[in-house]
Structure formats: C-alpha cells, structure tokens
C-alpha cells in the first residue's frame, strides 16, 4: 500500500540528482530491498510503471530490484545464518535468542544510469 509513496520518493531523488548532473534521460534505476522489509518488489514495479509512464525522462527506464536475504548473527556463538523462510530469531547453532539482524531490512536506491545532455 505504501509502495506508491515510496516510489514517488525514488523518482524525486533520481529527478533531483539527474538535474544536478545534467542527465536528461534515465535508462536504469537500481533498488536494494531486503526480504524482511514490508515492501513488495512486484508492487514497487507496478507503481514505477504507473508513475513513470507520462514522464519523458523515464520513458525508457527500467527498474531493477535486488532482493537481499535475511541474515542473522548470534551474539553468543557469533555464527551467521541465512534465514530461508519465515522469521525465527533463535540461533540455529546454539539455540540462543540474542541474535541480531545483519541483513534483510535494506531499502535503498543503490544507483541509476542515464544519458547526459
């Protein structure tokens, strides 16, 4: 549901930066989205289509989304694990419950590509 406002923010950031760098045509936008974030890549892509269709600058732009796996690290045994499915913050190694999330909550605009004037 909030993907629309998030995508608007992405386009604003790209537009602003492109202006500063004399770029008038965007070819590619790259986002990194962690699997624990409450943002759906499909929904982001849909919102991107809807928002970019009427804007000359984004006419040929492609949205690429890199999804990041969920990784946790145990504070006791210091092992790192990738969580395949679901959300279990118990260390699979030693059973400790003092684990921290080291990846999976990412939500950022990594880079974009464009043509300059």
């Amino acid at each position, binding site marked *: 549901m909030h993907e629309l406002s998030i995508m608007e923010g*992405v386009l604003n950031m790209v537009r602003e930066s492109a202006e500063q*760098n004399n770029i008038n045509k965007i070819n590619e936008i790259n986002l990194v989205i962690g699997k624990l*974030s409450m943002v759906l890549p499909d929904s982001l892509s849909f919102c991107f289509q809807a928002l970019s269709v009427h804007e000359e600058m984004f006419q040929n732009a492609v949205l690429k989304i890199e999804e990041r796996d969920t990784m946790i690290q145990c504070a006791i045994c210091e092992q790192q694990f990738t969580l395949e499915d679901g959300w279990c913050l118990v260390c699979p190694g030693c059973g400790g419950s003092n684990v921290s999330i080291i990846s999976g909550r990412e939500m950022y605009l990594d*880079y974009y590509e464009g043509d300059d004037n």
Partner: protein
Amino acid sequence: MVQINMESNLLGANELLARRNRSAFAEQRLLVINLMSSPGSGKTTILERSIEFLAGRLQMGVIEGDLYTDQDAQRIEKKGVQVIQINTEGACHLDAGMVGKAFEQLPSAAVEMIFIENVGNLVCPAEFDLGEDFRAVVISTTEGNDKLSKYPLIFHQARVILLNKIDLLPFTDFSLDKFKEDLAQINPSATVFLVSGRTGEGIDIWIEWLLEEVKKKRP
C-alpha cells in the same frame, strides 16, 4: 551513459523528520508511545481505559491517526484529554512529518506523555519511525494466533505487546501457549500485558508499568 551512485535510504526523508520529533520530545522530557494494531483489535478502547486509570495521576495528550473520520478523536476528547486529529486521507500509516505538525498544535503545557494512535494496519506503519520512545502493539484474542508469524516485523519492533480481549479467550481458539512460543522466536524481550479493554482487566498493571516509564524520563 553515466552511472550515478546514490545509496540513499528510501525512507531517509521520514527518518530525518523522526529524529527532529525525537529531539523535540526529549526537550520536553515527554514519553511518547506509538500505538499500533490491526483494525478492530481495540486500540481506542484500550486508550480510553488507560486515560481513565491515569486520571489525576498524569497529564497526557493524544495524537489520533485515522484515514478519514474523527470518531476516535471524539471518543478520546470525551475523556477530557487534549487530542489532535490527523486524517491521512487514505494513506495507510502515519509518518514523522504528520506527527511533527500535530505535535506543534498540541497545547503542550504540562503534558508528560503522548499516545500516538496509528492507523489500524499491521504492515505499513512498521516501516515508519515517528520519533517515539517505543512502540506498543495491540493484538486481540479474536484475531487468531497467526498474526505474529504473518506480520513479524511489527511485533519484532514492539517493546510492549498488549494482548487484548483476554475476557473472550474461552470463546476463541486462541492459544496462549502458542502465542508465547511464537513471541519467543520473534521478540523474546517484549513486555507483554494481558488486558481487556471492555472489562478493564489487566489495565492497572499496564498503567503502573507506564507510570514507571514516565518517572524514568523525569527522575
């Protein structure tokens, strides 16, 4: 072809405003609670009960988030508490900008605590920091056990979980054991209160805990 590296947080604008709110709250030594849940879990009823229990012991304000109506704000106002309504006009969550503006309108004299009642939704509000001290999430026995595993992020981030409608427990399939088991995996350090907004059961324990938290702000 040029490549421009950005590494910009998609919620950067919100996080900046949340930091601003947090320092404004800290300046007045306010305890600020972001109250979240799905629609119908009983957030407003718990808030009404909490206000009754706090009457005469604490000055508080409420920032009330709703999509369209001010029905909840009217309910709170009837309890004699300062309340500012935010209508998100269809947006699924409160953001730090909306809360900052509402806070400026709140007649601040001698308020020690603010409840922010978020829009009823277990998904989107979880991503938006409002500048609060902590998040309290309400879940009710009638919603079923699966809410924790379906919406783990919001429960993971909560410092307090209020299990509401505890009076209805015998009439539901809700399992307290399963609830505790799931919570041990998602958020083992959460403080849990079993309450009933309807009967008032357990509200006193939650309020005593809350008053201790306010005291920590004003030693």
